[in-house]
């Protein structure tokens, strides 16, 4: 079975530019997560979807970050405008249902210069 697909793998942008990340979860997985992982830290939950509804986005900086999961399948995370402190790995994960094992993609490493 195919895993969680993310693209791009790497992205370098200048501050104040915009960037978008894409995630395709494992087929049939209802729950999709976006995490931000800064070097040396644990993954920080940005947003969690259940199908196409938002379960939690309390840690999402909504003035600059947005995410959507149209049709309850793949998802995009956008940052506009980017700041230097947004440099991190953005991980997408999915699980069959909330509370079950989460499977992660390879992540997108974002560098903001």
């Amino acid at each position, binding site marked *: 079975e195919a895993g969680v697909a993310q693209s791009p793998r790497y992205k370098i942008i200048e501050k104040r530019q915009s960037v978008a990340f894409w995630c395709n979860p494992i087929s049939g997985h209802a729950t999709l*997560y976006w*995490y931000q992982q800064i070097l040396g*830290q*644990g*993954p*920080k*939950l940005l947003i*969690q979807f*259940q199908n196409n*509804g938002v*379960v*939690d986005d*309390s840690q999402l900086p909504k003035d600059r970050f947005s995410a959507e999961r149209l049709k309850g399948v793949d998802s995009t995370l956008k940052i506009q405008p980017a700041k230097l402190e947004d440099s991190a790995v953005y*991980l997408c*994960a999915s*699980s069959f249902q*909330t*509370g*079950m*094992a*989460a*499977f*992660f*993609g*390879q*992540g997108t490493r974002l560098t903001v210069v």
Partner: protein
Amino acid sequence: GQQVMQIPQYQHVQEGEDFTTYCNSSTTLSNIQWYKQRPGGHPVFLIQLVKSGEVKKQKRLTFQFGEAKKNSSLHITATQTTDVGTYFCAGIMIYNQGGKLIFGQGTELSVKP
């Protein structure tokens, strides 16, 4: 806010020594999951504990879930160099519309041959 704390942050052991990492939550958890992240990789699911006081074993790894469902531990017996990586606990916190998966800061294990 709701937090999952993990200690220690780092652990350096000689190959063959034991290793333990501890996880504590500020709130009662629905269940707890453990993940391993190799350097440069993404978190990989190891196990999930659901019941109060539950103990599970995977070869040299022993996982425990506290009676109050607020703490957990991972113990590795006789570490090997293949155990190197960062171990994360992640708790399912019951929320308005379901549960959200919150990660601890992780314990980075290095094993000296």
